[in-house]
């Protein structure tokens, strides 16, 4: 009898835990699906849905903006719908300027620290780009890949790297490449109340108007997706984190997602939050969750 009670109690406890774990991402999943629906509606037929592109000419909507773009295509960013930009992108990708960085990243991965250990101790697997950022339930904070790499360096008595470019971008390029080759997808988890709160903070920050220009990230990358700013079509939130680090023609070198986020934050007219700040990490957590299920496509090039 006692055994029966214990068994039933255990079963109830496990079921409760499972249900609870599943429920932490309910809102995030609703948000993601709503975003997918919005993006697919926007690009289903731009010529017909002119209200989404109020400043585009008819010719532009006919010749340049592709129709029938699906969520999975947006892993390529704006090149999923900007047909002219896509041609240039494909041309540059015939001899990608980031290839050497992948090789250098592989060397860094295997290079011994002063204590004789390597990054392999911290990252036994290399196809991990889609698993970051994650919420560390012990530390009660979001951990980005950039942070995990620097934590590994410090734990092994080494100095931290610049989080924007250089070695950091090269090692991340190697991880991203390995993930792409392995067919990995973005797989961000929200498995606790605190993780759900971090997601909500990131979401609120993303949609909040800021800076002297009173722009939110969403102004350009949700409502503004596909709208033209001078010669460029703005990229979508959906798929934003899939292709980093990127070789930006403007930078002339490879840079991390943190570098780009700081740049965007500055462009809004705000004194930018540091890429390693709680604010930035929570925004990246939200952004990455939005791309859940999309294929890793980095490193890549962007203008």
């Amino acid at each position: 009898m006692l055994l029966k009670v214990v068994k039933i109690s255990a079963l109830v406890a496990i079921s409760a835990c499972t249900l609870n774990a599943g429920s932490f991402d309910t809102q995030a999943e609703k948000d993601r699906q709503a975003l997918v629906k919005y993006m697919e509606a926007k690009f289903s037929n731009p010529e017909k849905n002119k209200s989404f592109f109020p400043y585009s000419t008819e010719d532009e909507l006919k010749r340049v903006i592709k129709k029938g773009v699906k969520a999975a295509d947006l892993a390529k960013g704006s090149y999923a719908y900007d047909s002219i930009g896509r041609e240039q992108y494909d041309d540059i990708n015939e001899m990608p300027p980031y290839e050497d960085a992948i090789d250098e990243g592989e060397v860094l991965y295997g290079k011994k620290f002063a204590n004789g250990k390597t990054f392999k101790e911290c990252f036994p697997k290399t196809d991990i780009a889609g698993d970051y950022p994650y919420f560390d339930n012990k530390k009660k904070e979001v951990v980005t890949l950039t942070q995990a790499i620097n934590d590994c360096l410090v734990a092994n008595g080494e100095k931290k790297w610049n989080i924007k470019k250089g070695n950091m971008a090269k090692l991340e390029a190697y991880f991203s490449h390995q993930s792409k080759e392995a067919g990995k997808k973005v797989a961000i988890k929200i498995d606790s109340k605190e993780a759900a709160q971090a997601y909500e903070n990131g979401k609120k920050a993303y949609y909040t108007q800021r800076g002297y220009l009173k722009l939110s990230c969403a102004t350009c990358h949700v409502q503004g997706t596909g709208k033209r700013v001078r010669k460029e079509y703005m990229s979508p939130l959906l798929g934003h984190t899939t292709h980093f680090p990127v070789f930006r023609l403007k930078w002339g070198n490879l840079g991390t997602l943190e570098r780009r986020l700081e740049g965007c934050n500055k462009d809004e007219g705000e004194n930018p939050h540091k890429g390693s700040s709680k604010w930035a990490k929570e925004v990246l957590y939200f952004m990455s969750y939005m791309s859940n299920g999309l294929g890793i496509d980095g490193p890549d090039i962007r203008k």
Partner: protein
Amino acid sequence: MKTFNKILCIAGLSTLGFTTVHADLLSDAAKLDVKQACDVKANGIEAVLATAAKYNAEAVKLGVEFKRLGVTNSNYIKTTTEAAKAKQKEVVLKYKKKGKVKTHKMATDYAAWRSCSFAIRALQQQVEAESTWKLAVPGDGFKY
């Protein structure tokens, strides 16, 4: 035990005090008319810069300080205050871009107006955002 209770009490009151000051400054800023509060002719440049310094300190704490063309509002306030003290008619704002020092020049009165309006608007936007941010979320307030 008594000491422990005292420490706990002081810590509690300090937190409460800090939170109240935080909320007070935000609600103060929300009520202000920027054009009036930052009018240099009507209020005098010292008062306008004092207003700028008061509200910008809060904007910095909240992580919403404005920055325009490489110049933070803190930099605007500091440089303009120095120029006003020295009775200079023009402010030379220095900032770094790609490792090089660059400059912007503008009238001191105008720089004071800008630093004041930037400081207040940063906080006003923060208050407004509490009720507006969801309006941009697909599946929530954003309709298309």
